[in-house]
């Protein structure tokens, strides 16, 4: 298998009110071509920061990020985008005066994918949407789907999706799963999805569990889900809390 992206001993430290906060600690990860990775873990475990560090949005404090063997640690967001990394935001930006069509055209670049098809893949009718501004008239779910469409339109080595299911209704959820599967079959893109959803976890070749800024486990989705169901079997409340969560929702099952 070809390694697309490697993180060597990556640390992210931010300055908080009470001094320095370590968000990511000694992250060593390897992402291979044409594989699907799902990153999961409690709130505040560093999932989004990890994806943002790969995209270059959050600068790393130490360590190295390699794309196709080349060090991209000092490259800007723009340079990384041009090298084939894409990121679908958890909370997409709204734009006054930028139309869906314009956004998709910018995303596609020289790629000849049809905008209609991109919108169809995320369950939207292009006739209703192409000429609309990406502004506050859009619901959270609509915005999220357009964000995902803007990633599907690109020819990427690595696509990062930050909680893509948030705000998406059940009907389109199935569509979203199919879209990931299609993207996986059609391109060699390495897909990294941050998610807590069981159905998305089932797509994963590898599940990466983050806890308190470190990789606590890399496993298959079968093993991961089996463990969860074992934990759940003795649970009365059926909450999907994970031991060691940010709000100390400790659970000894």
């Amino acid at each position: 298998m070809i390694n697309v992206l490697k993180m060597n001993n990556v640390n992210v430290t931010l300055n908080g009110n009470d001094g320095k906060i370590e968000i990511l600690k000694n992250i060593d990860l390897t992402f291979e071509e044409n594989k699907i990775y799902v990153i999961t873990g409690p709130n505040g475990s560093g999932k989004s920061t990890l994806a943002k560090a790969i995209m270059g949005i959050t600068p790393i404090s130490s360590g190295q990020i390699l794309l196709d063997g080349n060090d991209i640690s000092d490259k800007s967001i723009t340079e990384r985008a041009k090298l084939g990394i894409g990121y679908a935001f958890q909370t997409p930006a709204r734009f006054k005066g930028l139309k869906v069509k314009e956004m998709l055209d910018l995303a596609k670049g020289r790629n000849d994918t049809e905008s209609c098809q991109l919108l169809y893949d995320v369950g939207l009718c292009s006739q209703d949407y192409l000429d609309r501004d990406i502004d506050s008239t859009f619901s959270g779910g609509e915005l999220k789907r357009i964000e995902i469409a803007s990633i599907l339109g690109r020819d990427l080595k690595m696509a990062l999706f930050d909680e893509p299911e948030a705000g998406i209704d059940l009907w389109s959820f199935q569509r979203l799963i199919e879209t990931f599967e299609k993207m996986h079959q059609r391109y060699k893109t390495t897909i990294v999805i941050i998610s807590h959803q069981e159905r998305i976890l089932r797509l994963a070749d590898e599940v990466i569990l983050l806890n308190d800024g470190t990789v606590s486990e890399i496993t298959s989705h079968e093993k991961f889900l089996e463990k969860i169901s074992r934990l759940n079997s003795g649970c009365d409340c059926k909450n999907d809390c994970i031991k060691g969560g940010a709000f100390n929702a400790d659970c000894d099952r």
Partner: protein
Amino acid sequence: MLTAIDKDLLEKIADLHEVPHGAYNIRKDGKGISRNTTANIDIITKQDKPGIDIIIKPGTKGESVHIPVILSKEGLCDVVYNTFEIGEDSDVVIVAGCGIHNSGSADEQHDGIHEFFVRKGAHMKYVEKHYGEGDGTGQRILNPKTIIEVEEGGVAELEMIQIKGVDQTVRDTDVILHKNARLIVSERLHTYLDQNAESNINVKLMGEDSSAQVISRSVAQDDSKQVFHMNLLGYNKCAGHIQCDSIIMDNAKVSSIPEISAFDSEAQLIHEAAIGKIASDQLIKLMTLGLSEKEAEAIILKGFLG
């Protein structure tokens, strides 16, 4: 005669490549130089002061009037009074606009005082673009005053755009709305270098069920200054909404002064005003698509002012 500079100015302010179809009046350096009237639209020169009367017959549908003004002579201060009579139940588009080319050291100024009577049930769309160019040190000054009265069931739709190159502007817009009358204003203002712009919009909602929507967007760059004073006054059961949005950059200064006044318990008036720099989440999103920060900025500003 129209020179190459004149033609370029006309294209910028009125999207005109040649003389327009339909009714028009082209004013250059303080004088009317070209005019056409139609069976439904008459244009008459005022006798008592500089300017024209534009008279649109009741029931006129789908016609347009172009009244561009171009200035290319330094040191000129052109004041013009235009009166528009928009006949009952007509539906027309009026394209005004002023382009200044100043390559001299003396100022050039155009003060257009436009008065509109939108009669019962008429629909008027008024498009006004302002543009300045030329490498002279003389200032390019535009002070438009727009006075509009909309009668019962009439609609006035205004698109007021200052594209670029205007050094000083004070824009006054006063509107009176009668029963069921509607006003839709879309203002776009872009200033840079050490330009100054002031926009004052006063809307009196006099009639029952009258409504007004004012959307103003501006971008202030470099050392430019902008002041917005928007005022809605509700004297009856009415609805009004002002949205004033400014992007501020560099060392610019922007003041947005909201005012809404109700004189009737059924009046519903809203004023929203926001000033801020370009949102970083917008910039980052476009950068993740491979655009540089400068390219992303340009796309955001173009869309915002578009």
